[in-house]
């Protein structure tokens, strides 16, 4: 088993750009997630060009997908396992490459659908650049030569720690709608808990990761090891089905790929220092208590699945809502270019509730290519939602409040800012949810231009990308900016407890978490990975498990070698399906089966003679035996034959098949064989 980490979390954090890996198992290559790192977008100036775009590149943007670039470099991939909609975004880059003609892509139905919408939307928004500058011809653009590029690289390095070596080729022109279509055709959508068989020997299963609708953790069961691919996970969610950790129990290896806590460290350390200290101490106490109890799994699970995280998340979103209400009250509009589906759905519910309770009537607009479809389909996927929303199905209520908001005329959906009906419905102040969080693409650019100088207005940004750089083209700013972070994965203090529940043999952990996870006294071993490096894990077991049908077993003719050992020759058909090797009876059993094919130990020529005579053969030792240890037996009837015997070899010289057959049988009786 070999693991190469292709990219760690890119810009926008682990939600928008999850880590990706290349995993080699039994000679097959699996690509685990293929996101785009949209950080590079920040270095391009939005169009149309106005204001201060100094230092920003004025050209059609190119995109960075280290995973796609690395996958292209290795030449081919047998299968891609995708854990989220964002993990699909880089795949169309690979669609045309010859090494991907037979690649199968496994992703949950919902992540595939959301991913497709996101890719389509990205291409659509990107078109604005193409309209402005003309198409990207695929040649090396001017800005990629010389000074400009160096500047870009240094900015990128700051933002995403891109290695100098791999970015020139990694910056690619965006794919086309045709590429997306090709990529979608390779996708085999799955449901949570569905076991799919890949290449006969692997069983792949997606389970809910809790972070977002359709996000998944993967179990890869090979013939000799079971592996958990664990991307960012959330134990209790307010919209998606909870993290189904119990389905991951006792897999041999965990590839821990939840890098959200690494990000927290980078970003939050300064601000939250004091608070964090408290928290760590607190959690350490708790953990040590847990460890002392040892086997108390229930308590561990209670610790993992407590509602604290989600309560905090709701509090955060409620806080955002109260800021929104304040801005509205002051007469300003609110722009929310947040790209997280779950946050959007919760925001809609909480804002409308708050607007209602403070009896404010302002319209909420969702301006996006995909708004209508997203809103419609989120109300039609109960199987993918958290238990409390599933209950809504069973009591006949809509799954999300947005269904009623639409009906009541509080929420409006438009594909573009220039949509016909938008002008008619438009009223300020208003609340607008629209893409894109990079502030380089989509309606957000135009609306921010409209409102940036109004200090009553509010811009709600997600923390994680370089806000200063993002806002640069919109300077000077008077609009209030609220930067917020959202629940993105496991908290570090829960990792150890989770591993304790899952009981793996090996854990592959990002280098960055090394200091945070204790090795002492744990029954599992850690292997640490870092970007661009390959780590290897020897086979956990040499042999394969096979199933032998009882009918085959009954036909076996075991031969006892000594008191403790017996052997039997096996002739069967080997079937492989659903990860299981099955030996089934062959349709016709040839009579050859009784013949020994393997002989061992010496043959005693003095015993062979009577054995041949018993078969009715006329035979005698040849006279011309020399002293080299070779003895010969001459057969004269029923056919003519000569048998030469040495200590390690017997040769039957004979032209008549029947006779040689008889000799062979006689030999078998005096020689150990099977």
């Amino acid at each position, binding site marked *: 088993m070999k693991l190469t980490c292709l990219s760690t979390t890119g810009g926008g954090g682990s939600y928008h750009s999850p880590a990706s890996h290349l995993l080699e198992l*039994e000679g097959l290559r699996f690509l685990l997630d293929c996101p785009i790192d949209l950080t590079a977008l920040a270095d391009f100036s939005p169009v149309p060009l106005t204001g201060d775009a100094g230092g920003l590149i004025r050209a059609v943007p190119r995109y960075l997908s280290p995973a796609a670039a690395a996958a292209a470099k290795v030449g081919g991939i047998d299968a891609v396992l995708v854990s989220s909609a964002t993990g699909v975004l880089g795949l169309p880059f690979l669609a045309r490459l010859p090494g991907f003609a037979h690649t199968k892509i496994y992703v949950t139905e919902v992540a595939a659908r959301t991913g497709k919408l996101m890719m389509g939307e990205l291409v659509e928004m990107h078109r604005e650049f193409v309209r402005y500058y003309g198409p990207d011809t695929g040649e090396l653009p001017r800005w990629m030569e010389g000074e400009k590029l160096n500047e870009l690289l240094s900015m990128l390095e700051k933002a995403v720690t891109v290695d100098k070596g791999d970015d020139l080729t990694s910056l690619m022109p965006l794919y086309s709608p045709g590429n997306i279509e090709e990529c979608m055709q390779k996708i085999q959508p799955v449901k949570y808990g569905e076991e799919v068989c890949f290449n006969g020997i692997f069983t792949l299963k997606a389970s809910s990761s809790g972070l977002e609708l359709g996000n998944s953790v993967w179990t890869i069961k090979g013939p000799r090891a079971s592996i958990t691919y664990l991307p960012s996970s959330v134990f209790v969610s307010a919209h998606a089905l909870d993290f189904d950790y119990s389905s991951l129990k006792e897999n041999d290896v965990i590839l821990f790929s939840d890098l959200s806590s690494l990000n927290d460290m980078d970003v939050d350390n300064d601000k939250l220092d004091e608070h964090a200290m408290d928290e760590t101490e607190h959690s350490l106490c708790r953990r040590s208590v847990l460890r002392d109890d040892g086997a108390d799994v229930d308590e561990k699970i209670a610790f993992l699945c407590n509602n604290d995280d989600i309560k905090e998340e709701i509090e955060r979103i409620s806080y955002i809502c109260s800021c929104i209400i304040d801005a509205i009250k002051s007469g300003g509009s609110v722009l929310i270019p947040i790209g997280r589906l779950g946050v959007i759905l919760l925001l809609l519910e909480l804002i409308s509730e708050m607007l209602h309770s403070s009896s404010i009537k302002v319209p909420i607009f969702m301006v996006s290519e995909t708004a209508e479809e997203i809103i419609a389909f989120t109300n039609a996927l109960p199987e993918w939602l958290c238990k409390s929303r599933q209950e809504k199905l069973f009591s006949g209520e809509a799954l999300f409040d947005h269904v009623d908001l639409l009906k009541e005329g509080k929420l409006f959906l438009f594909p573009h800012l220039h949509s016909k009906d938008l002008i008619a419905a438009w009223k300020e102040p208003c609340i607008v949810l629209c893409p894109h969080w990079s502030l380089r693409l989509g309606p957000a650019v135009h609306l921010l231009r409209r409102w940036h100088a109004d200090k009553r207005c509010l811009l709600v940004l997600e923390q994680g990308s370089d806000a200063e750089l993002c806002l640069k083209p919109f300077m000077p700013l008077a609009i209030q900016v609220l930067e917020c972070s959202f629940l993105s994965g496991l908290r570090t203090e829960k990792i150890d407890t989770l591993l304790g529940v899952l009981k793996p043999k090996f854990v592959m952990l990002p280098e960055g978490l090394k200091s945070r996870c204790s090795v002492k006294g744990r029954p599992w071993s850690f292997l640490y990975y870092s970007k661009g490096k390959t780590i290897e894990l020897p086979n956990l077991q040499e*042999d394969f498990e096979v199933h*032998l*049908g009882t009918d085959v077993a009954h036909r076996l003719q075991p031969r006892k070698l000594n008191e*403790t050992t017996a052997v039997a020759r*096996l002739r069967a058909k*080997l079937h*492989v399906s659903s990860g299981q090797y099955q030996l089934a009876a062959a349709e016709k059993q040839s009579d050859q089966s009784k013949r020994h094919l393997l002989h061992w130990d010496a043959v005693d020529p003095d015993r062979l003679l009577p054995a041949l005579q018993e078969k009715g053969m006329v035979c005698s030792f040849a006279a011309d035996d020399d002293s080299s240890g070779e003895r010969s037996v001459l057969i004269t009837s029923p056919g003519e034959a000569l048998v030469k015997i040495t200590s390690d070899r017997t040769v039957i010289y004979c032209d008549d098949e029947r006779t040689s057959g008889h000799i062979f049988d006689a030999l078998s009786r005096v020689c150990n064989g*099977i």
Partner: protein
Amino acid sequence: MSIECLVLGAGQDVGKSCVVATIGGRRVMFDCGVHLFCRGRSSYPEFDRILAASGATDFTAAISCVVITHSHLDHIGALPYFTEVCGYHGPIYMTYPTKALAPMMLEDYRKVMVDQQWEEGQYSYEDILRCLKKVIPLDLKQTIQVDKDLVIRAYYAGHVLGAAMIYAKVGDAAMVYTGDYNMTPDRHLGAAQIDRLKLDLLITESTYAKTTRDSRRAREREFLQAVHKCVSGGGKVLIPLFAVGRAQELCMLLDDYWERMNWKIPIYFSAGLTIQSNTYYKMLIGWTSQKIKDNYRAHNPFDFKHVRHFERSFINNPGPCVLFATPGMISNSGGFSFEVFKKWAPSEKNLVTLPGYCGPGSIGHKLMSGKSTRIEVDKDTHIDVRCQIHQLAFSPHTDSKGIMDLIEFLSPKHVILVHGEKPLMAFLKERVESELGMPCYYPANNESVSIPATKNLKMSATERFITSCASEQTEDNLRKQKLICGSNMSEANTDRKLAEGILLMEKNKAVKILCEDELVQVLGMERHLVQNEPMVSSRTGAAGE
């Protein structure tokens, strides 16, 4: 090992489906239905037989889990009785739509119990809610580990929203219980879909064991023509049916037709029930046909444009209309469809459409069976039936060709037929045995059948042995694939030769399969080569020496 099947319902009969299968010590109850033409306890399966068969003192100990295939009453109607009155507290599984639709269906039936004044066997509305609260919802294809050994999985069955075929496996023994299914897609649901599984036993429904149906489109056209003729003559159409499934299918058909004809004639849904079920359909659109899912972007196809709510006072309104009313088949004992029927049946302008199957005893059955123009309601009242009668000739059940196709596709080692009429089942059994060569049974209620089940021995095999074996085609996809894809794979072993190796059995060690060379090495043997040569080479050999 064997699979023991105790048929508690739908044995040589249609109604109160319930089969209890014992697989390697795990007992699974498939379906828990009521018989719609019986009253009281006799409408339920005889649950006590499970205790007798298992030797357990209570149902929770006797049964590992209950799995319900779909929301029709003959498959789910007895569940609240079994859990709340008989006291079964173990796990219950059904698909999301079935769990969502079940309360409506059960409540519908509970009202019948109350109307009919059952003396025993009634359950309350609270029982229904308590019972369904315990249900664990299933998604299709999801593999559920019920306990350490028992695995179940649901496959799409068509028939009604949320209908599933259930796969159950304990160790190497595996079976499928189909419930009701449809092998051809209809207006709103897809055809049944299942993987090619290795099965010891298939228990299949056989409602239409002898019927082969022709094109669905032609049958739909007949229905539309009958409706068209009636409403354009100013008549009223009564479509009695159960709340879920058929109502939405016919509604889609009519809504489309109305759209094309640009008609304003009202289509009504009776009681809140069926409108409510449309709400469920909208959320469960993922369980409808692929065609609907593909075409659905923003407009939900279950937002019917022409459908309105029916008020009781509308019964005597003049002018044409179409009314969907429960219950189906029209029952003497009451229900809204009967009330409307009393009013509308005497006019020859009106039309009543009936489903393909009406149980004996129902008015539907009487209307279909002959030119009965006079229906006795009780001693004093009767109805003069002068209206037109149209029998729907398309059904959500598979026809006999579909049943045979499914059996052939799955190729189980044994087949059991349930949910059908005895003579037809006998006919189908003959076909299964003679055409497909599989032993086939159709036990009566309360009979049980035991069939042998697969048992495999587990052992380990060396990598060399595996790589030396011929590669086979996968069962799942007929693509050529590799056994393991090491560098030592070559094209040469893609032909179908036999796997050949040695089984090594050592005391106190697991059995292992290895190659000859490995055996020699492991046991430290001295190999003795035995060769065959032509006579002539012995001489040349001798000459050479």
